[in-house]
């Protein structure tokens, strides 16, 4: 694999941290307490947690991109 560019990480080191949180809500609550900008996703298992349907949806999504 060719050498990864450091540009995006260098940019991150010099930016205000803004977070999107998916999952345990306490992690977003803790960031809010520190006045860090955070957006929570009201996450639910996709396709009602049915992995077969979820994989099928992912395949459709991948095809759409092509």
């Amino acid at each position, binding site marked *: 694999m060719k050498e990864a560019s450091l540009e995006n990480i260098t940019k991150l080191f010099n930016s205000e941290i803004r977070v999107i949180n*998916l999952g345990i809500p306490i992690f977003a609550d803790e960031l809010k307490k520190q006045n860090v900008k955070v957006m929570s996703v009201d996450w639910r298992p996709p396709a009602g947690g049915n992995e077969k349907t979820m994989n099928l949806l992912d395949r459709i999504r991948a095809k759409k991109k092509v």
Partner: protein
Amino acid sequence: MSVKKILVRKSTYFDSVSLMRIGEAVKKESGVLNVVVGMGTDFNIDSLKRLDLFAPELNGITPNDLVIAVLADNAENAQKGAEKAEKLLTERVISKVSADYSPPTLKGAIELDALSNVVLISVPGRFAGREVRTALENGKHVMLFSDNVSVEEEIELKDEALRRGLLMMGPDCGTTILNGVPLAFSNVVRRGDIGVVAASGTGLQEVTSLIHRFGCGITQAIGVGGRDLSERVSGRMTILAAKALGADPATKVILLVSKPPAPSTEELLCSELKSLDKPIVIYFIGADSAKIKNAGFEPADNLENAAAKACELSSGTEIIQIVSNEEISKKAVKMQGRFIRGLYSGGTLCDEMQRQLLPLLGTIYSNTPVPGAKKLSDIHRSEGHTIIDLGDDDFTRGRAHPMIDPTARIERLQSEFADASAGMILFDVVLGYGSHPDMAGAMSDAIVKARKETNRNPILVANILGTDEDPQNYGEQVKKLSEIGVHVFPSNISVARFVSAVIGGLR
């Protein structure tokens, strides 16, 4: 006679922390003897069976189904307990609705906040990969707290991140501090000029907290997930993160912390990092330090020493051991009972403690044995000298981590007190954001209760990991344990030295 009340809500999802809090609240209801509120994972089903809360209606439930199981002294109280749980679950849904708008998908959140730069993912492992892909495709760095992600998927996700020049910190990454912002389980650490990369969550917490204690500070502390330096993952993120710190003008010294890497990975890492024009301190727990020195890096002997060496290179002044051997020897007391029991919430602290004590104790049992230690035949029962990691997957599947939820450790503490052969109990209290607001208080209450119930008083030793700027108040946490007679130390290695002083005399 006790009575069970079981409710199952099909295809209903709540996160483990919310469920833990609801379970704790129901447990306080009158007449309630035990409660499990959790998703129908294998681990929770095992817990239900162990706690005599299993019932035939639970056959066939899946990890997507929610279970409320209440054991009470009579049918009325069991019913009331279950109703209380349902009420709290409904309130949780209402509070979510009334809070700031939360989009239902990551894609939606990215559209709403295009300037976001980090996505913190802690959904169950089997769903995590697809969310990571979405984040990376949209140019976002990822911190992946979820575990139960396969090594194949980890490699695929890290390669995608490398192609895009993005950080993919994880899976199973609990600690990262970016630009002074502590994410997930991290401490409030002074800004400075030491950049840290670690394939070890509590290792990263301990070194950054000690850097702060020594008066120095950090630029960034980047967690990469415990498997990053394995043969297959071959340091993909460690190398990228270290190179980024190498290119960062604010970073003067780099510190790497990990369990020993696979030999092929170590070779690759050394050749990749040699070109960096900055001093690099390396602590590979249990590894041969001569090899690291020969490769041109600065080796460290333990987590405290790693922090001290990085601070010496940063400040140019000598840093001395926090608690001297003389001081530790003075505190040593006589042990009643033959065996040592370590109940850890931090995996790296558990690992380092086993390696430190193995030469002294000869045989150690663990759920996560280091080379030379033995695997426990039943992880729920200690034998001989036992040092366990309660934060390991075996204990956390479907329930909150022991740094948030003290229940599993308190149950284990009670069994250790009931065992006359347990002479000394070691534990960690990990402070910082993400952690329990008063773990020292929770442990102190449990210790006082266990002493009363068993009329036993094994030696208790704790490492309190954290800084004076953490939200829990470091001084108060020390006081709560010290005043009930727990020997409190500020680093894992001080605890190991105290054990040496008690057992065999500290050199």
